[in-house]
């Protein structure tokens, strides 16, 4: 089976020193550029952000098609849906 190729990428492993977007806001913005069926790659290293993304994906009907964790680092592929 061919590996899923992400159509976009968001790296949340940076600090929030400037009081910018929440992690989920950044992901939602990136998802808007994707077509249904395309996947977004998300890098993060905060457990709370991973929880929030999983809960949001579940509530909005998006599938997390792949997730890997190594130490504190988590990598996810989130699939876009038709009305996303």
């Amino acid at each position, binding site marked *: 089976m061919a590996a899923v190729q992400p159509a976009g990428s968001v790296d949340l492993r940076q600090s929030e020193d400037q009081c910018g977007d929440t992690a989920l806001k950044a992901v939602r913005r990136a998802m808007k550029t994707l077509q249904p069926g395309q996947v977004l790659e998300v890098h993060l290293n905060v*457990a709370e952000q991973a929880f929030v993304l999983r809960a949001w994906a579940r509530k909005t009907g998006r599938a997390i098609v792949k997730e890997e964790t190594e130490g504190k680092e988590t990598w996810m592929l989130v699939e876009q849906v038709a009305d996303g």
Partner: protein
Amino acid sequence: MTQFAHPEVLVDTQWVEDHLGDPNVRILEVDYEPADSYELGHIPGAALVDWKQDINDPVRRDILSRADMAALMSRVGATPDMALVLYGDMRNWFAAFAFWTFKIYGHDDVRLMDGGRRKWFEENRKVTEEVPEFPATGYRVRGVNLALRALYPQVQAVLGRDDVGLVDVRSPAEFNGEISAPPEYPNEAAQRAGHIPGAQSIPWAQAIADDDTFKPVEELRALYEPKGITPDKTIVTYCRIGERSSHTWFVLKYLIGYPVVINYDGSWSEWGNIVGNPVEKVAATT
């Protein structure tokens, strides 16, 4: 290790877990973006405080009124004798802002959960989507302490005084004048970028460890004192809209224990927009 000056204002995650359901404790999650945080999962029994709607005046730029404070406390089932334990999204900034606001409105026992929402989740503690309901309490505000708040004319009046220390807690890019706000927050941008003349740049995050808990008091002192932010001065903290500076205000006033620390919540989004105001910038080194 030396104890914090006011250790009673800080509780750890285990203390909170041990007091879930304690009738003398009300746990409040203070969020900037509740839909991205509280609504997806929060500490069992925690009530939501929405920073934009609950801590701010709905029309003019100001903190909530005394009447709104009473209504908020009543809604979350708090009484004046209760311990309010605050935590929240965005690294506890808005929880610290709420702490500052509740102190202005005279609530005696307010505490921050060290490490905030991130630490609770990092430790894989129990969370829920269930929203608790509390009977209204008819809370009455006992008093108002405006000495904790610096307004623009007061900050302008103390410029250049050697008995006053200004702490700019924003990122270096904001302090240096490269940006006035991140592009995703255009409503917080100012006409001019830079900092208040004489301010020392001590970004808020330098006060916390990797797990978002506060650093030991010796390390905190070593952060501020070499930059002239010393207990013999009146200290004014500021950032862009007053929330990150509330975090540093908390550190200086309660953890290190400086006698006079005041938060300027108008911050750069006020100072950088006023015609004729003095502004300092740091020249690029490249």
